[in-house]
């Protein structure tokens, strides 16, 4: 973790050697890996569509400049080496010379420049490349990203599914901002990743085949990947159990996770979700009624027993989270106020805030939820707050858009919410707490939270190239939000990857299945 960003200024050939010797067993060539996707794929082109479903096929079809190892250290991928200038305003990528697209055309720096343009115009995470002003291409294998300010978040944004290099000769025939509806996003897709598209049948499956001219010699190991689309979690569980499916990710229903853990020949692990960084929390609208008062928000935190949620509702499948950064991230700070359940303290805080108990009630609030899985959590909050005299009404939404609209317009008191980190804090964390992003749609700063010091810390951390200093800034930020509670952080979403004993080297790195699985293989 020390000096992460500066350490990148030198090529990391050594680190990549270490990564490849970490394999204990000799991988076997060939075979068809059957995996599963939980929802239909909207778009296979990960340069214009983010999200966990597109991430898996997207990262197989398209290669990105970097990849990451388990310790959050960047590794060469399409870029065999890279340099960051002393002032942090130039990032030079030296591309491998043998990369080809699936149609045989060589991949050059022009494609990198084109992809940055397309991503900037279409990708929903504007923060990733916002400081990138232009890309120079001095020769075919050198791409220089010019920045308006130092941008350490760029490193993670160049890995996983976030910076898919797409071919200009295929997608360049329409204006860049129309690439998101390009017909080649779903059929005859051409990338430079380890696998090429064989067949995509909407609602049924995606089939990928080994790309024989992949730029890493001897890879990938698998001949074929079949991604079946099975939306029903119970049916997926049976498919793992009877061996129809070898591997799947993003399973989170506690009873299913716990059942699968008991099945012989299956491994069920929460590893591989650090970069996607999914978090569950109780959002509080800091601009409405009693919730404006930080003492009320603290009282709520003291009255809600996290252990009950973790043990009874999540049935031990989830880990606690205390801040807006995922517990697996190197930036996570666990040493902040944890709000052990304490009803006396809660009552005292509410009295102090000027809401005395009248009869058995002080005031009333509403709590929203956007999807059925988290209804028990909201019912629990209602029961827990009743004990300290807060009457809570659980407000259901007809569907996700209804809830999203309420959140986006800040028309709520409290809500259960799940928000993802998506790599660097600049991409997925900052949006929830910075005051310039208040009330800008769902998953913005819907809490209306505003704190000058927090804004300052987030802005400084976004441009801080020294990783120790950067961590210190995020430490202070986490301490403040844990103290002021615009959201009460509860747990990391219990996503689990399930794989059978037949699968060798499953993708359990920081990006999970949103990375190329060129090193995954099938045992005999």
């Amino acid at each position, binding site marked *: 973790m020390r000096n992460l960003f500066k350490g990148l200024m030198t090529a990391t050939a050594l680190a990549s050697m270490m990564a490849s010797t970490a394999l204990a067993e000799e991988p076997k060539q060939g075979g*068809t890996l*059957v995996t599963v996707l939980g*929802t*239909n794929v*909207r*778009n296979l082109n990960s340069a214009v*569509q*983010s*999200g*966990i479903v*597109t991430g898996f096929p997207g990262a197989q079809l398209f290669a990105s400049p970097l990849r990451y190892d388990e310790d959050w250290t960047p590794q060469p991928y399409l870029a065999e080496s890279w340099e960051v200038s002393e002032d942090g305003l130039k990032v030079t990528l030296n591309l491998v010379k043998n990369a080809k697209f699936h149609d045989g055309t060589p991949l050059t720096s022009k494609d990198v420049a084109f992809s940055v343009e397309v991503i900037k115009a279409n990708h*929903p*995470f*504007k923060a990733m490349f916002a400081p990138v002003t232009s890309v120079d291409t001095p020769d075919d294998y050198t791409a220089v990203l010019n920045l308006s300010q130092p941008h350490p978040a760029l490193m993670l944004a160049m890995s996983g599914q976030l910076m898919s290099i797409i071919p200009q000769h295929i997608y360049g025939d329409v204006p860049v901002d129309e690439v*998101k*509806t390009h017909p080649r*996003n*779903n059929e005859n897709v051409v990338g430079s990743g380890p696998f090429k598209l064989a*067949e995509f*049948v*909407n*609602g*049924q*499956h995606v*089939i990928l085949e080994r790309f024989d001219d992949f730029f890493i010699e001897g890879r990938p190991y698998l001949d074929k990947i*079949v991604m*079946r*689309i*099975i*939306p*029903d979690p*119970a*049916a*997926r569980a*049976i*498919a793992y*159990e*009877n061996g*129809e499916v070898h591997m799947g990710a993003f399973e989170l229903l506690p009873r299913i996770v716990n059942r699968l853990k008991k099945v012989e020949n299956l491994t069920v692990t929460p590893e591989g979700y650090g970069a996607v960084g999914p978090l569950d929390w109780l959002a509080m609208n800091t601009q409405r009624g009693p919730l404006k008062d930080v003492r009320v928000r603290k009282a709520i935190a003291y009255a809600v027993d996290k252990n009950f949620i973790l043990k009874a509702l999540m049935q031990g499948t989830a880990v606690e989270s205390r801040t807006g950064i995922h517990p697996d991230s190197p930036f996570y700070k666990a040493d902040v106020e944890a709000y052990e359940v304490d009803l006396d303290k809660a009552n005292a805080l509410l009295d102090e805030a000027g809401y005395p108990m009248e009869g058995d009630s002080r005031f009333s609030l509403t709590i929203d939820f956007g999807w059925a899985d988290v209804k028990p959590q909201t019912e629990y909050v209602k029961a827990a707050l009743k004990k300290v005299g807060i009457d809570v009404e659980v407000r259901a939404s*007809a*569907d*996700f*858009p*209804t*809830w*999203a*609209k*309420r959140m*986006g317009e800040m028309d709520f008191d409290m809500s259960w919410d799940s*928000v*993802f980190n*998506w790599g660097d804090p600049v991409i*997925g964390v900052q*949006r929830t707490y910075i005051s310039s*992003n208040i009330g*800008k*749609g*769902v*998953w*913005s700063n819907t809490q209306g939270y505003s704190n000058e010091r927090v804004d300052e810390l987030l802005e400084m951390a976004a441009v801080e190239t020294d990783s120790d200093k950067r961590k210190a800034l995020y430490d202070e930020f986490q301490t403040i939000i844990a103290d002021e509670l615009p959201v009460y952080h509860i747990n990391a979403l219990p996503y689990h990857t399930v794989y059978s004993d037949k699968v060798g080297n499953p993708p359990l790195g920081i990006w999970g299945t949103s990375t190329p699985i060129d090193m995954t293989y099938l045992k005999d």
Partner: protein
Amino acid sequence: MAFLQKFLIRTLYAVILLAAVLVLNFSMMHLAPGDVADTISQSMGGADEEVLAQIRADYGLDQPFLVQLGRYMGNVLQFNLGYSFFYNAPVTDLILDRLPATLLLVFTAQILALGIGVVLGVISARRPNGIASHFVTMLALFGYSAPVFWTGILLLIAFSLKIQWFPVAGMRDVTIEGGFFTHALDVARHLVLPVITLGSLFLALYSRLARATMMEVLGSDYVRTAKAKGLTEREVVYKHALKNSLSPVITLAGLQFSAVISGAVLVEAVFSWPGLGTLAFQSIIARDTPTILGILFFSALVVIAGNLLTDLALRLVDPRVGGKR
């Protein structure tokens, strides 16, 4: 002439009905807060306001309601059901892709249920207090009252997990290689559990109705006459009574056929059957208006066609229907 006039009037009604279905549903979808831009952003892990606005502009969702409605109806008049925002594909393609799977599932289930249901109904009608009759009644009650998703999961646990005879989900196994016959057999294997699940619901309806009408017919004067003529019981039941008791069953089958899509939604969801039901369900969740409206339009067409076919079938078994009045 009279026939042509009747046909024209019916067609006119059908067009009005279709237009009403579309306008009403379009308006209702529009009344609900939020739109497909929200679900697109959800599928992408969140998007800022600028991106949401861009998505809305791309799909014309930023236009006033009447403009959007006018555009849509204009397209439909040109037989263009529009473009699915969520799946990035023409709605007609999506529906036609999914239709065969649903038809295969529903037809197989309907035909088996109709055939077996009528046989069971007749058997139990002949001895209304016999053991067979009670057994059929129990089976029917169970089939009708058990929720299909429960029956489906139970069948999966029994026949995909404990005894691994049938596959869990989908319509075919893409890892299988072979000729037409191998693939047909593979689809048939995938079809068994969904058909049993869906069929048990229909079976209950048909067997109960066949039993009731058969009992009624068996008590009528002409059956007594036939028996008095000295015909055997078999001849009476299958030659005289059965034909006369069939028309309510056919009417019901026609009505059920109209419910093709609604009936299949849950079964398709449980078995990940790639049909229209799954598509309808997913589009509703995604608030993908063009796809939902396309499916509704299509369902309305099926209902109209189903009613016409039922009329025809009734004429075949009962010459009195549609005769000169």
